[in-house]
């Protein structure tokens, strides 16, 4: 894996209402050298960003990764709130879901999500995040359509083949 020249750790905000999944995504992100803040709801995510107070970004967040199925505010609702906010719309958002529903995937991508990961999220999925973070630090941003990189709804995940050997 090619590491960026910069030493700065990117800060990822992870949102998931399930404790196990929160623990997992946090570990995956930390293993990939990201700084992580994990919250258990969309509301808490918005509070953390400072969106509820004064629409001013209190903390530097470089990417948001959120579960889709959450009580109250879904991951999609959170995505839309982020994209409709002037201060936060440029933060890349990634959605995770345990259900492989093509219409859901398309809706999220059309709603502005950069990627859609099927759960359980793998280290190989987390590796796909870096380009979305790196391109935002470039001056010439040529926003690639992530269409080639999205999970194809028809793809069945052949788990054993994707195993990374130590």
């Amino acid at each position: 894996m090619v590491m960026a020249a910069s030493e700065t750790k990117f800060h990822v905000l992870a949102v998931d209402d399930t404790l196990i999944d929160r623990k997992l995504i946090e570990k995956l992100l930390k293993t990939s050298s990201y700084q992580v803040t994990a919250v258990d709801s969309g509301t808490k995510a918005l509070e953390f960003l400072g969106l509820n107070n004064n629409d001013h970004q209190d903390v530097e967040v470089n990417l948001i990764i959120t579960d889709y199925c959450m009580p109250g505010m879904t991951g999609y609702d959170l995505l839309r709130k982020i994209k409709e906010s002037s201060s936060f719309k440029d933060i890349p958002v990634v959605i995770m879901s345990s259900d492989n529903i093509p219409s859901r995937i398309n809706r999220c991508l059309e709603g502005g999500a950069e990627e859609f990961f099927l759960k359980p999220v793998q280290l190989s999925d987390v590796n796909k995040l870096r380009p979305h973070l790196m391109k935002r630090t470039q001056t010439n941003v040529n926003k690639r359509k992530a269409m080639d990189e999205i999970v194809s709804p028809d793809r069945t995940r052949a788990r054993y083949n994707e195993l990374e050997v130590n």
Partner: protein
Amino acid sequence: MEVGQMQRRLVDYTKSLFMEGFLDAQFLQLQQLQDESNPDFVVEVVSLFFDDSEKLLNDLTMALDQPSVDFKKVDAHVHQLKGSSSSIGAQRVKNACIAFRSFCEEQNIDATLRCLQQVKQEYYLVKNKLETMLRLEQQIVAAGGSIPMIELGF
């Protein structure tokens, strides 16, 4: 029993859990994520799974015991159990949940009760297996040995 023997026993036992479908590759992912900074990662995640599952199984038992069953509620619980079992690689529990959900959709009370029994059975089986495996690991570490990494070669 010396460390080498214990390690071989652990490897054989763990491999059998994969062969028999109790665990899938997601469990390997958990083991690979464990490192010096978080040496109890697998134990912690597995414990969360046990706590979560037992609560969900109780909720399911109660929900299916109602005079008028709320299948939406039942499905929501099964969805959660499917999610957590999938996250730790408890394959047979996950598969039992998938079947369970299809009967929830049909609102079939007899079938869902049978599914609940099936899920409970699979859960207690994998719980037993995981506890045995973790105990073997503890014994190795206590004897000063290291836990061998499993590579799925088949």
